């Protein structure tokens, strides 16, 4: 086997190493510039600097990276350690299955966009303009989403229709664009480049409408639609240009049919259809947190307490004329009991509602109670304007909203004066936050354990790494204003376009492979897969190559070791541990996303740790088998450290929780065998927590 070694222009100089007999060492001055040829199915060992730097240079190579720079040279460990590391890597590679290259045909050059808000409309316009047949589905009867419900758009104060209608018209003028309202997805099957999606279109109840409005006059049902009242048959001036029946509210009294026979059908049936798409774009937009759960603010319990959207609509409709208004910020946001994160746009929405009412009724007294004001970017100007318009900003998080002698009031502390304060008002507006659309994502088999998709992308699980052909656009990615939403929609369109422009895509991710001879179809692996990639097909366990992300969790769950991870199969790992672990060593098996990076940080920051700490890089702590740990201990290792991501930061959703459960069982077993359970430690070590890593291994060495 070839071992490619780099001396980094003579700065990484080790004495001649004693390596195994079958090893052919090739030395380079700068491996990263020379980039030697490596055959697609060749297995090599690369002994140089960090795999984080080199992996990108040798994409899809079957290489085991030995970080002699940061694990030996920079921290002043003896060259023998490098010898052991390289020999262990060679032993591992000999028993390691190469990673197969997978090709996915892009059989359908069409796209499905879910959600007809501005994001979905913009994506549909962009894709269809570029020749992609695109279907846009919207679950309500009208396009436009949240923007269609608003009065005007800040920072400029543009009427909503001036932003929305040009977008809709651009999309409608494209011959490749189709939009279906009252439509949702029910079933999704297939894979990137070749999805089959089942749609259900619910009845609209109205056809060939001439917009005369007689039906509205006779409809006896009046309901509140987010702050504005309307009839059960109604119209929103966006698209399509016809009325619709809200069947959830309609009593089927038939009055409308009497004034408009032939065009209204109260018994229209829902229709099921199927479409093919190579890419799916999720643009399901803003989803409110249920603010009635913040009980102390009284939404749904106290009259006069409303949400921003309801307030905006009621003020715009002229049905609300308060003299005093309090706007409470972070209602349920940045709160460990509700939404622990900041939804980013609610501060802007609060400022907007303040301006909206003051512009309309200058005598209104507006109090904004905010624990912090996050008027990022140029929204700061809006904040400035509002102070000049006389809005009182109170710093502090109100403790409650209550009614006393018929009056609505907010209790808070004013942090500027340090005094308690009660504000008597006519209306309280709660600026509450937004939640991710877990339902749609789970239909698409995307596990949102890390809140919004934008964070999911950060976690390294982006669509580029995950060849799923599913993209997110607009507020579904993360809540944002109109400008941010449109920018995000364009980015999503371009990602989808560059996928659909290809004939086939090629990927080389380490994936799980099942050995049918060993597998007894016990199905234990099915439930442990965070991606739902495992299923039973014709009485055999099948791994879906489009879904498997290569965490290796199933390979440890499998009692027969039938499921194995390419590049990290157990046999290879065991060989590596057998070679590497010496008497008295600390073997550190570390997650490539977090703890492993901390060891590199330690070297860069010149934090020393003992030379008997031997590091093994794994995709996830969930892929560490108890037998690996036992093997290290059998070999005489003093301790085994398993280092992974913090509980909610696992790149594979829940591998670290699996590791934790296994560690605890293993400890009990060790103790029942009369060994010290604390020889094995599982620790959460963040990417940059070099200090923590060093402290732990030093402690284990005592």
């Amino acid at each position: 086997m070839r071992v490619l070694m780099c001396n980094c222009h003579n700065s990484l100089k080790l004495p001649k190493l004693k390596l195994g007999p079958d090893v052919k060492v090739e030395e380079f001055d700068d491996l990263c510039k020379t980039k030697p040829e490596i055959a697609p199915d060749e297995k090599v060992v690369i002994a140089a600097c960090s795999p984080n730097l080199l992996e990108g240079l040798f994409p899809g190579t079957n290489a085991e990276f030995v970080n002699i720079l940061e694990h030996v040279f920079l921290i002043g460990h003896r060259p023998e350690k490098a010898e052991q590391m390289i020999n262990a890597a060679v032993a591992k590679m000999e028993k390691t299955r190469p990673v197969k290259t997978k090709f996915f045909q892009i059989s359908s050059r069409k796209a499905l966009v879910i959600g007809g808000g501005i994001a979905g409309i913009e994506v549909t316009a962009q894709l269809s303009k570029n020749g992609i047949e695109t279907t846009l589905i919207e679950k309500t009867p009208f396009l436009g989403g949240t923007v269609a419900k608003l009065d005007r758009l800040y920072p400029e104060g543009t009427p909503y229709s001036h932003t929305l209608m040009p977008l809709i018209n651009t999309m409608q003028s494209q011959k490749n664009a189709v939009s279906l309202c009252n439509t949702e997805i029910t079933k999704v099957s297939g894979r990137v480049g070749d999805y089959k999606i089942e749609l259900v279109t619910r009845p609209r109840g109205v056809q060939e409408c001439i917009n005369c409005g007689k039906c509205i006059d006779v409809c006896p049902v009046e309901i509140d639609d987010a702050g504005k009242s309307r009839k059960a048959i109604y119209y929103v001036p966006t698209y399509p240009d016809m009325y619709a029946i809200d069947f959830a509210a309609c009593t089927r009294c038939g009055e409308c049919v009497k004034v408009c026979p032939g065009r209204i059908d109260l018994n229209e049936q829902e229709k099921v259809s199927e479409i093919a798409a190579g890419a799916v774009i999720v643009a399901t937009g803003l989803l409110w947190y249920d603010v009635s759960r913040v009980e102390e603010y009284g939404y749904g319990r106290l009259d006069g307490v409303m949400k921003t959207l309801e307030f905006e609509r009621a003020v715009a409709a002229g049905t609300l004329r308060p003299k005093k208004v309090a706007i409470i910020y972070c209602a349920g946001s940045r709160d460990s009991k509700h939404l622990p994160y900041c939804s980013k746009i609610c501060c802007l929405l609060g400022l907007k509602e303040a301006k909206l009412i003051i512009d309309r009724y200058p005598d209104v007294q507006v109090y904004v109670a905010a624990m912090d004001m996050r008027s990022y970017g140029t929204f700061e100007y809006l904040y400035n304007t509002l102070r000049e318009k006389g809005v009182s900003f109170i710093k502090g998080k109100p403790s409650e909203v209550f009614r006393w002698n018929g009056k609505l009031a907010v209790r808070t502390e004013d942090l500027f004066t340090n005094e308690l304060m009660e504000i008597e008002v006519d209306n309280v507006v709660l600026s509450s936050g937004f939640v991710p659309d877990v339902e749609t994502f789970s239909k698409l088999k995307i596990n949102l354990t890390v809140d919004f998709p934008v964070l999911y992308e950060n976690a390294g699980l982006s669509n580029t790494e995950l060849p799923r052909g599913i993209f997110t656009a607009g507020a579904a990615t993360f809540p944002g204003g109109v400008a941010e939403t449109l920018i995000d929609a364009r980015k999503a369109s371009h990602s989808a376009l560059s996928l659909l422009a290809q004939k086939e895509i090629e990927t080389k991710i380490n994936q799980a492979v099942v050995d049918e001879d060993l597998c007894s179809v016990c199905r234990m692996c099915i439930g442990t897969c965070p991606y739902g990639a495992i299923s039973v097909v014709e009485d055999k366990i099948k791994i879906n190559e489009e879904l498997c992300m290569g965490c290796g969790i199933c390979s440890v769950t499998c009692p027969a070791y039938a499921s194995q991870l390419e590049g990290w199969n157990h046999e290879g790992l065991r060989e590596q541990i057998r070679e590497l672990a010496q008497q008295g060593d600390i073997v550190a098996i570390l997650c490539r996303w977090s703890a492993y990076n901390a060891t590199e940080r330690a070297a860069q920051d010149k934090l020393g740790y003992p030379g008997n700490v031997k590091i093994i890089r794994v995709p996830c702590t969930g892929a560490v088998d108890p037998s690996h740990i036992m093997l290290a201990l059998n070999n005489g290792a003093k301790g085994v450290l398993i280092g992974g991501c913090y509980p909610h930061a696992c790149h594979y959703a829940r591998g670290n929780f699996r590791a934790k459960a296994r560690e605890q069982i293993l400890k009990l077993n060790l103790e029942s065998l009369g060994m010290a359970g604390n020889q094995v430690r599982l620790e959460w070590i963040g990417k940059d927590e070099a200090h923590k890593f060093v402290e732990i291994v030093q402690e284990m060495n005592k």
Partner: protein
Amino acid sequence: MIDLKESDPQFKWEIVKKEGGEGLLKCFGCSDCAASCPVRYFNENYNPRKIIRLTLLGLKDRVLTSPFLWFCAHCHACTERCPQGIRVAELINAIKNYAVDQGYCPEGYKMQLDLLLKMGRLYEVEDFDLKKRQRLGLPAIDKTIPDVARILEYTGILKVLQK
């Protein structure tokens, strides 16, 4: 004026180590605790947010000698509301415990302890009470409960207060 030269940077870490003090560093100063506090409603000098703030700034002497530290009524309204999930009432307790460890204990508490040591009760049982009980058909009770003194000794509080 706050003079940070007087600040003891270790103070907050010592409180964090105490039972109940774990959440201290999570505080982002929203003042929901202060706005929820019924004691503060009647006495503006008491302010849990301010105690937490001074603790975070390391102003140990100010915190430990402050009479307001002892005003908390343990109603836990703050604990229920805190958006950061800090058990605020427990945190105040941790600071109180620390204060006692350091020899700061209000006279009133010491007097109560004396009563407990002597009688095993906070309220003295007088002949008048016993007569009243008899009239109501209730059994007589002991004027002192010596076991309480043993419990107090066992808890170590006597050593802390050098009794």
